[in-house]
């Protein structure tokens, strides 16, 4: 049973993104702000921090493919971006010491990175036409705030569950 726990959490997180996306865009002080949920990135990165990095690459690949096919229709972007994020964060943690606060902060930086890379990519292939100022003001800052709130809520449970699953599997 225990081996189904993590895929199940992943699937719940995957679907919750599209449900939370219905809150967006938000009107704040007369301006529209986009809230882009990146809960999947949080889940995948925490999986690599607290469970097993090699397994999390596979998760990242599979969920990225699902994301591409079902939502964006442009194949390949998230499929390769999610594993890349895990790889970059692993490089960062060669340099600094890991604890739950630092993990949360690094995850937030990775979310900013994924937004930026996808933005540049879509500019290149002509799907987006936002200028940098609009992107920062209307999209990036609000998105980071929104996801920071999610990390605050979810970081501790994710850590507990993932460590518990790993511990149980090591025992067997």
């Amino acid at each position, binding site marked *: 049973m225990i081996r189904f726990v993590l895929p199940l959490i992943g699937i719940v997180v995957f679907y919750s993104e599209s449900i939370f996306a219905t809150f967006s865009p938000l009107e704040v002080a007369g301006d529209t702000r986009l809230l882009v949920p990146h809960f999947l990135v949080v889940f995948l990165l925490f999986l690599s921090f607290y469970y097993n990095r090699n397994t999390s690459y596979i998760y990242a690949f599979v969920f990225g493919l699902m994301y591409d096919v079902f939502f964006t*229709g442009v194949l390949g972007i998230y499929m390769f971006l999610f594993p890349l994020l895990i790889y970059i964060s692993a490089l960062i943690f060669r340099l600094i010491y890991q604890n739950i606060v630092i993990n949360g902060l690094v995850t937030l930086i990775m979310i900013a990175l994924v937004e930026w890379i996808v933005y540049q990519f879509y500019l290149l292939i002509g799907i987006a036409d936002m200028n940098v100022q609009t992107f920062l003001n209307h999209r990036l800052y609000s998105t980071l705030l929104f996801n920071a709130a999610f990390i605050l809520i979810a970081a501790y449970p994710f850590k507990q569950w993932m460590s518990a699953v790993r511990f149980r599997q090591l025992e067997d």
Partner: protein
Amino acid sequence: MPSFFRNKRLIVLLVSIILLVALIGFSLRERDNISLPEQFIKDIVGFGQNIASKPASFVQGGFDSVQDLLNTYNENKKLKTRLEELALLQTQVTDLTRDNEALREQTNVEGDIRDYSTTNATVIARNPEQWQDTIIIDKGQVNGIEADMAVQTAGGMIGRVKDTGQFTSTVELLSARNSVNRVSALFQAEEENIYGLVEGYDTERGELMVKKIPFDVPIEVGSKVITSGLGGVFPKGLLIGEVTEVSSDEYGLTQTAYVDPAANLYDIEHVMVLERTAVGADEIEAEAEEDEE
């Protein structure tokens, strides 16, 4: 050993980049519908999404109905004043429809580009990354949905079907930035019809841009914009919105009208997918080819 690992990493990187470029090229080219493996994944994910969206929409429905209750009194007052006008309008419409039918029979005109058949669908997801404005509905090829059908809500037209799976379809909203997503529009003016193309969306104003309008025709602010049906894909007469501003384009050769969309493009729950019953250009061409053979 270290050099071997370094090598492996490099190979993985290179292969990924090649795959990435190939996949993006594959998914961006013009195609009628998505490939079979994509449909397969889409159907599996869509099945789960169907289940996941049920409790969410239930909770949201609860909030909405409380809000409805609070608004009831005001709405009731407003509606009562409209009710009398409505009775009058209804008799006129019935009269005109009968008149129209009778005239059509006399002149032997068959097929009307206004005719369509509808399929009701529920929105089960919205694209969470929000770069492309797409929504996903819970009806697919099994229910007779095909790519390029028009989609509307009670308010007005919202977009077209981009691609279909067996049980779900993706709808591209009018606000999406896509060079292929062009709708032939018609301004309802007093004397004559004016045509233009819906091309693009102004994110800051939250309004659609209708371009390619001849420079010498005056367009009144507040006039209604409907689909013209001349593209051969959508039926005629779907409400798109209302003109809020008209300006000439950068070279002064054509005009651009800003149109406030009639339907809310953000809060969409139930939609109707419309299949045009009159033959379009594609069908006529296909028939002509068959005749030649």
